[in-house]
């Protein structure tokens, strides 16, 4: 596989999708190397699902192009569909049918013979721990079971590229762990996985490379370590006793730690990227000398919120709302 087009499982160049006024995806570039797990990290409404839908041939891009193993997602859509499996945020399975019937229908559609379809479905149900529930109507399935069935359905064709749109959102921690194991197993068999997530932790656990997406744009890209290095491995949360000291405190942070503290929306809390915990003592001494009193201090490991605060300068919760607002809002944030 020295051919340059097959080195990349997925290439997206300047993908754009506009819904009315809202530029849901606004020029997304992605490169996913074959055989890796790629994480797309972002809050609700950042454009993750829309991006996946365009790359999975479910939505036509308004501009830009996407290629799957070198095949154009618009012009060679039918080829692309033979190379991908899609597991959406909402289980794409038939509620009125049983798990077994669902898998049988999908395998028959994929061209498997009746006997092959039966064997394959039974096999996947077994592997996903659904054998006992196989003939029960899906209405009785839990969220986790549904998600597993959905993933099983995506694997019937053994596609070389699998899209997982928020595979663990809404799952309990144990089921989430199982899902992570499944994803790791997939990669071990040679699959390439592109997954979206709202959790930095998940991207960290699974992904070889991560793109942080916000307002339809990729705002940061790199390995988990690179990203964390840019954010600071942890962050310092400070609450000032007197709000009037805010300016002075921010100035002191810039001077001592050489980083910009970010004010939380309610202006009561300052979040400071903490690249070197050793220098926090210096900061605290500086505060005492300047007479800036703290009411609360804590150290937090980076969460998606911090990634967002640091990379985009606005908190993650904003993004969904902001996406609905116009470009005006985006300028404020930028």
């Amino acid at each position, binding site marked *: 596989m020295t051919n340059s087009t097959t080195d990349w499982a997925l290439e997206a160049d300047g993908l754009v999708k506009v819904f009315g006024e809202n530029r849901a995806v606004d020029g997304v570039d992605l490169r996913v190397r074959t055989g890796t797990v790629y994480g797309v990290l972002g809050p609700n409404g950042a454009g993750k699902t829309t991006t996946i839908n365009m790359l999975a041939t479910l939505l036509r891009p308004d501009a830009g192009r996407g290629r799957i193993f070198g*095949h154009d997602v618009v012009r060679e859509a*039918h080829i692309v569909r033979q*190379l991908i499996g899609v597991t*959406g945020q909402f289980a794409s399975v038939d509620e009125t*049918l049983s798990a077994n019937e669902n898998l049988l229908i999908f395998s028959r559609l994929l061209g498997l013979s009746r006997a092959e379809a039966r064997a394959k479905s039974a096999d996947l149900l077994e592997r996903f721990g659904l054998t006992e529930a196989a003939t029960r109507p899906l209405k009785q399935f839990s969220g986790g079971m549904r998600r597993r069935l959905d993933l099983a359905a995506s694997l019937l064709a*053994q596609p070389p590229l699998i899209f997982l749109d928020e595979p663990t959102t809404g799952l309990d921690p144990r089921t989430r762990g199982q899902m992570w194991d499944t994803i790791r*197993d997939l990669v071990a068999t*040679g699959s390439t996985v592109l997954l979206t997530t709202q959790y930095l932790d998940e991207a960290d656990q699974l992904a070889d490379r991560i793109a942080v997406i916000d307002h339809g744009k990729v705002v940061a890209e790199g390995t988990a370590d690179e990203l964390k290095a840019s954010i600071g491995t942890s962050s310092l949360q400070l609450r000032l006793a007197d709000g009037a000291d805010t300016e002075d405190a921010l100035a002191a942070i810039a001077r001592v730690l050489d980083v910009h503290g970010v004010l939380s929306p309610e202006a009561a809390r300052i979040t400071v990227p903490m690249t070197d915990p050793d220098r926090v003592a210096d900061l605290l001494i500086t505060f005492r000398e300047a007479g800036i009193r703290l009411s609360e201090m804590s150290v937090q490991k980076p969460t998606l919120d911090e990634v967002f605060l640091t990379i985009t300068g606005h908190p993650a919760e904003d993004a969904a709302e902001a996406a609905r607002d116009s470009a005006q809002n985006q300028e404020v944030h930028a």
Partner: protein
Amino acid sequence: MSAIATTRIVPASERQLKNRASLGQTFRNTLTMAGRGLVKIRRTPEQLFDVTLQPILFTLMFTYIFGGAISGNVENYLPVIIPGILVQTVITTSVVTGTQLREDMDKGVFDRFRSLPIARIAPLSGALLADTVRYGIATVLTFVMGYIMGFRPAGGLLMVMVAGALVIVCSWAVSWIFAFFGVIARTASSVQGISMIVLFPLTFLSNAFVPVETMPTWLQWFVNVNPVSHLVTAVRDLVNSSAFGADAWLSLLGAAVIVAIFAPLTVRAYMRKA
């Protein structure tokens, strides 16, 4: 969970790929989707209410209300009304195809169908094919009701079956129109609304219930070009005099034209709607 697959996944570069679904694949995909439709009917038999009750109710009502007025008595009216009511009932049933398709498409499973390397038309053509079972039920019930009320078709059982098949084929073609509404409409109830507006003039401004000669001249013109009239005449010719005449051929031609226009339209709309 154990390892997902022991066999390694075939890399993209080593796969044989085609950018089009072949005709054979289209056919197989359609059959699979039709099979899905049948399983769904088995799961929710209550969706068969309309095709069971309507033929019984309408046949009874229309025959006894109009029979005396139009043909002097019920017995003479039966050869006229049974073909009429059959066409009306079965074509009305095809509206449900559109509303059910709309409801079905709102579910997540259609996203998966769209992402599978299957013939684009299959989820639609399969659903429509499965619905011919519903038309079959309506057809059988209408003839059975007619028989109970004293209708003895001169053409015999074979011709009744040919006529039934003709009506089912034509209704399947017409159901593409409602499938199109089903795809473009936002809700199932709006599909019902639009479809009824199309359907009422088509079925009632025809020769299904009353002789054309009793209508004003301008209306006769429409009734005579109305495809429903041709289908009704074709069915009457078949069951009453065993004749597969020009009207039957015209009906088939009309059905072919409808499918040729609406099947591509529907599939295009379906593909655009994400």
